[in-house]
């Protein structure tokens, strides 16, 4: 352990600018590289440029890194930095201020350092403080009108902390808080709106609670009782739809706002003390208090509009407790209801949220926090927060690849400790799979196989050998199967299966294979298929191929049966011809598209085609999904038919399989994206038209205008068409799912068996997730949803899903 730490120390020592001692920077930008590096030949210019930072870049870098070095007194470092910045203000004021604001947002663990810096600047020149506050207020106003909720949160918090640095008077913050809490009194608004503003207020209190208690106790008490009143009347019946854990085991997963309220109350009980934040303004109090505070203007919270999409409620994911940690660190883990747990978790989440563009910088910043708070098990909490992000329901805020690649970076930065912690958490999660939401379990399987693929698939499977005794459809078995399937797709099946211990081999999926129905004589249609494949290979013109296919004869059977056979033969033959790689398959589909198109006129024909694809790729789920997607994009099959096939055909995929949900999800996403795309195009053209009307005096403009109007008409029809498709796909899926659930329930009730099977939880969890993920769409159709899908006759246990969904809106 000492090795990596030493190495890291050395590295930091070299990189970091020592603010108080060394020559801070050379104003003329002279190269001051002590290593005497001489650029030589190609590529040297890059390094040269790195060395020659401009004054502006140096200032930015100083601001960014202030406080990273733990040597020396922090307050002195900040004051020295303020001394450096003051003379530069004339030339670089904007850049300096913007940088300080950005840093306070991005490096949220250092926010108070930046508050103190602003305090120190304000102390020396109060007009700087004033301008800074004006800038913050401008930002806050625009964030409020533009619904940038995360910015609102960090700005209110920064303003609150500026009272500690005596830049903003306490009375101003009290009235800002009063403004925020009045939102909860607005009549008939969505709970999401009042929740959000209450959350912003509560999440700032840890910074100023102590000050308020001391100096504004009456106002604070009034504020807290107002929050308490609001908290007691809000409902959280949506919780089951957002929880990763289905029960309070292993750890209760509480509503985020609820938990924060308990944490703040507990903090109050303990005299507003916390043990996480760095507060460098405290030792400077006497000096800072001589400065002039700048009152805030009145802030008006914009009213609710249709565009304001407030953040969905969320829950706080927990997977570690004191007993899960090694004995020497366990006791230092802050209790779930301690404000310290909130503060650390919030710092970690903010860093992760604000570094999505650069995972390496993010890992580095997290490492800084882990090292700064080395007396607390921050590394464990980082892993917990990252899992929390990956498992967020309905969907994580950023791409799963971000969290996955960030975890890899953390393993690289902390090779001695982080992988060990991960292993421990993986074991905890695996042992609790019985209580985990299905959608979450699937994400866990995704992440785990992705992670393994980056580490040569090394895993000690033997410690999970107990799961082999469980039922084949039990969550642990299901999970291992999922991981195996993903691993054998990411690596090669051949290589991966060699790494799996023998007793686990039965859980391996068979290698990808295709099934060409017309390979052997005796199958109806064998002759035609044989001839068709030969003609395809012989580059025969498409018309000739059509003749071959039309030669299909099935005696006395009906037209419909003939169509079914023809579609099956053609689909099988095309897939057989392209059965080499994905590209070959797509080329073949492209080549023979027109032949298929001619046949696929009716919905039944489309279902026959999907069934043939299902037969052919029964043992190749990857291509199965890709080919279905390609068929839709080539406009051979529509999304509605896919949904119908998924639920009604005789060979539809198993409802608990990944394939089934992958197909459903990609249909949803295609339908949604294509509608959004159309709407966007329409919007753009309408805007264009408006501009041309402004210039209606232009004679040659009239023709364009006409053209635009036609285009608009065309697009409007398209939008209409697409939204009908969307409504159909979204509602019919919902109807089918509910029907399946209800029939399962009534069968179980009749037979007197337990209804909560793996199958049942899998479907309910996925249905809830889909409803919430597309809540904006479903909300438009809430009338149909209520009457057609969740109407009167539906089992109460299924109606519960709808109630939870409604609770979120």
């Amino acid at each position, binding site marked *: 352990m000492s090795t990596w730490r030493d190495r890291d120390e050395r590295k930091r020592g070299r990189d970091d600018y020592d603010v108080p001692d060394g020559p801070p920077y050379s104003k003329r930008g002279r190269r001051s590289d002590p290593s005497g590096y001489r650029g030589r030949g190609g590529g040297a210019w890059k390094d040269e440029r790195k060395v020659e930072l401009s004054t502006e870049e140096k200032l930015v870098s100083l601001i960014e890194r202030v406080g990273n070095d733990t040597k020396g007194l922090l307050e002195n470092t900040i004051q020295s930095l303020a001394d450096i910045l003051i003379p530069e203000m004339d030339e670089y004021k904007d850049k300096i201020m913007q940088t300080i604001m950005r840093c306070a947002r991005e490096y949220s663990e250092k926010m108070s350092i930046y508050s103190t810096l602003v305090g120190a600047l304000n102390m020396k020149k109060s007009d700087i403080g004033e301008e800074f506050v004006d800038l913050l207020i401008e930002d806050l106003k625009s964030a409020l009108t533009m619904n940038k909720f995360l910015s609102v949160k960090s700005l209110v918090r920064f303003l609150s902390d500026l009272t500690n640095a005596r830049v903003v008077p306490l009375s101003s913050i009290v009235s800002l808080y009063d403004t925020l809490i009045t939102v909860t009194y607005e009549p008939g608004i969505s709970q999401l709106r009042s929740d959000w503003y209450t959350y912003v207020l509560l999440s700032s209190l840890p910074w100023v609670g102590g000050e308020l208690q001391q100096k504004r106790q009456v106002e604070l008490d009034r504020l807290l009782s107002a929050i308490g009143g609001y908290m007691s009347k809000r409902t959280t019946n949506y919780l089951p739809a957002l929880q990763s854990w289905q029960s309070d085991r292993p750890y209760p997963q509480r509503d985020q706002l609820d938990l924060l309220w308990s944490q703040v109350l507990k903090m109050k009980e303990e005299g507003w003390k916390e043990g996480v934040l760095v507060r460098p303004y405290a030792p400077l109090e006497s000096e800072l208090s001589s400065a002039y505070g700048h009152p805030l203007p009145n802030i008006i919270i914009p009213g609710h509009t249709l565009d304001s999409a407030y953040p969905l409620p969320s829950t706080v994911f927990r997977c570690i407790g004191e007993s899960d940690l090694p004995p020497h660190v366990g006791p230092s883990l802050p209790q779930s209801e301690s404000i310290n747990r909130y503060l650390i978790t919030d710092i970690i989440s903010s860093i992760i949220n604000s570094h*999505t*563009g*650069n*995972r390496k910088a993010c890992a580095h910043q997290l490492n800084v926090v882990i090292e700064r708070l080395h007396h607390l098990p921050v590394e464990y909490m980082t892993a917990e927060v990252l899992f929390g992000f990956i498992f967020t329901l309905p969907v994580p805020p950023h*791409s*799963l*690849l*971000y969290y*996955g*690649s960030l975890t*890899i970076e953390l393993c690289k930065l902390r090779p001695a400790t982080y992988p060990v912690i991960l292993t421990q958490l993986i074991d905890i999660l695996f042992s609790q799979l019985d209580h985990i939401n299905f959608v979450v379990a699937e994400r866990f399987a995704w992440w785990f196989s*992705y992670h393994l*693929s*980056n580490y*040569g698939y090394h895993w000690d499977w033997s410690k999970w050998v107990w799961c082999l005794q469980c039922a084949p459809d039990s969550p642990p078995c299901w999970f291992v199967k999922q991981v195996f399937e*993903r691993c054998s*797709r*990411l*690596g*090669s099946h*051949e*290589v991966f299966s060699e790494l799996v211990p023998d007793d686990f081999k039965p859980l391996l999926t068979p290698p*990808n294979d295709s099934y060409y129905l017309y390979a052997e004589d005796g199958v109806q249609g064998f002759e035609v298929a044989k001839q068709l494949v030969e003609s*395809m*290979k*012989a*580059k*025969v*013109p*498409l018309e000739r191929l059509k003749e071959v296919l039309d030669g299909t004869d099935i005696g006395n059977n009906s037209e419909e049966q003939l169509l079914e056979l023809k579609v099956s033969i053609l689909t099988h033959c095309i897939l057989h*011809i*392209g059965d*080499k*790689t*994905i*590209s*070959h398959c*797509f*080329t*073949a589909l492209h*080549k023979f598209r027109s032949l298929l198109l001619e046949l696929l006129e009716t919905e039944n024909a489309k279902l026959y085609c999907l069934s043939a694809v299902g037969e052919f790729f029964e043992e190749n789920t*990857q*291509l199965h999904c*890709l080919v279905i*997607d390609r068929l839709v994009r080539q406009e051979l099959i529509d999304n509605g038919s896919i949904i119908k096939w998924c639920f009604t055909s005789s060979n539809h995929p198993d409802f608990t399989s990944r394939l089934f949900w992958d197909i459903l999800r*990609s249909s949803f996403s295609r339908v949604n994206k294509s509608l959004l795309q159309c709407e966007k195009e329409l919007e753009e053209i309408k805007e264009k038209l408006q501009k041309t009307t402004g210039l209606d005096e232009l004679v040659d403009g009239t023709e364009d205008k006409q053209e635009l109007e036609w285009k608009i008409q065309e697009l409007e029809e398209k939008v209409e068409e697409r939204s009908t498709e969307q409504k159909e796909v979204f509602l019919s899926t919902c109807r089918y799912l509910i029907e399946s659930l209800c029939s399962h329930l009534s069968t179980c009730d009749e037979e007197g068996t337990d209804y909560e099977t793996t199958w049942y939880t899998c479907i309910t969890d996925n249905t809830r997730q889909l409803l919430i993920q597309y809540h904006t769409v479903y909300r438009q159709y809430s009338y149909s949803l209520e009457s057609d899908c969740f109407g009167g006759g539906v089992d109460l246990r299924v109606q519960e899903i709808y109630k939870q969904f409604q609770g979120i809106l």
Partner: protein
Amino acid sequence: MASAPTLSNYRDHKADIDPDDYQQLLVQSTTLYVGNLSFYTTEEQIYELFSMAGDVKRVIMGLDRHKKTPCGFCFVEYYEKSAASIAVKYINGTKLDGRIVRTDWDAGFKEGRQYGRGRRGGQVRDDYRNDYDEERGGFGGRHQQIRDAEYEDDRGFGGGRRHRFSEPGGKKDLSESMET
């Protein structure tokens, strides 16, 4: 942000395009260049990893000019720019099939670019490598002639994993056979 493709380290040196236009192409691009692949990595594996960023439109395997077998690079084209940008940000520098892959913006695929431009038919970098890299055809060009023979005997050179994708009976063959 990451979609500032001016920072793309990769550039198609043979593209006969004005630098400004080239930048413009990069800005609009939904195509990535993917490098440092194993010769044995299949299209299926590439689809599996890159689909995690979003729907993949097509993958074009880089091929040895002479042998028409994969030579360690490919182009991945997405339907959406945002998906491509996720892949550039988060797949670059992580592993595929045990190798750290490199992903960069590409100005868009043109016929002919799928072939290696090295003297030996593969990528130029494999002509100049000094190490032995089994997954990239053994030694680099400089050592190949001298050392390959020695290795062929005791390492069963080329006897490991097989290419599923090999051009002679592969893609080219398919497209030719389908010329109607």
